[in-house]
């Protein structure tokens, strides 16, 4: 069993943590806190971690989170997947759900990688 190829991730992340191991590898974040962004409608064949309920919706950057390869690449263990910035995006619940029954101030926050976001027009 010693020739089983594994644990490359462990070896490069040990002592740093994940996603800290990707810090500094995504360049300058495209968005800043307060920016209005719209979630793109990208194809989601086989895998995504961007919830269906936010696609096409416009929200606001609440936090610039960390750098990491997108889950859509990590899930297939793609070795040269480029790290990108992740953001916590805040949405007004009334913008997400038709006939939302809570208040106008209720919100939902979810984390989205940069390639899924575009500046809101």
């Amino acid at each position, binding site marked *: 069993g010693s020739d089983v190829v594994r644990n490359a991730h462990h070896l490069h992340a040990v002592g740093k*943590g994940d996603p800290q191991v990707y810090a500094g590898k995504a360049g300058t974040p495209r968005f800043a806190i307060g920016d209005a962004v719209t979630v793109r409608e990208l194809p989601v064949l086989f895998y995504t971690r961007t919830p269906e309920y936010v696609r096409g919706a416009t929200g606001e950057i609440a936090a610039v989170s960390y750098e*990491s390869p997108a889950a859509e690449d990590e899930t297939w263990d793609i070795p040269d997947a480029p790290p990108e910035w992740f953001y916590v995006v805040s949405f007004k619940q009334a913008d997400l759900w038709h006939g939302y029954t809570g208040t106008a101030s209720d919100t939902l926050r*979810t984390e989205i990688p940069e390639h899924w976001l575009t500046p809101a027009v």
Partner: protein
Amino acid sequence: MSDHSHDHDHDRTVKPMVDEVTDFEVLEIAVRELCIEKGIFTAEEHRRFTEFAEQIGPTPAARLVARAWLDPDFKALALAEPMTASKEVGVDWMEPTGFGTPSDFTAFQILADTPQVHHVIVCALCSCYPRPILGNSPEWYRTPNYRSRLVRYPRQVLSEFGLYLSDDVEVRVQDSNQKHRFMVMPMRPEGTDGWTEDQLTEIVTRDCVIGVALPKPGVTTNVIVDTRRAVHPVGE
């Protein structure tokens, strides 16, 4: 042989520990033994991870909240550097592998409630949960019911937990769908003046740091969900 009378004493027959070994258990043993045989992991590593998973629980999270209530500097640290603050209640997010657990990651954030904002967490995609500091997730947290309804009907779901929030409070649902893990820091309730850290820790239940309950003097256990009666109960 064929005249076996079948009158031996069944009560004295050696029995297995369980009535039945399920398909799940058969598969668990098969997968684990194959992994050990192939060198994917060792029996020692399996034991160590099991021991890690068995010693985690919600107490460190409760103590962190209680300490933050008593110490404004610690509260500031908890909100700015939550993993540093976690160490002060005995939780090192880098354990047990040296790079964190493979499924909980090392991007932890604490969401502080205010008089204007109430946070509640969910993982609509699966069951992501801040296990190193909060232990294993409750069964209901993993259900498609909670995951699909909390994002859409948060006030109704919270009311089923007995938590009714007024309309001047923003309900902020946090869906943990990537590497961040979240816990809620509720506000310190009235009627706790002069309480010690231990007393305050006791009322910060697991449900309070998920956000489906508020801490209350005298309440030291999780909420019992107000389950609706079955429309067609079994046996009718």
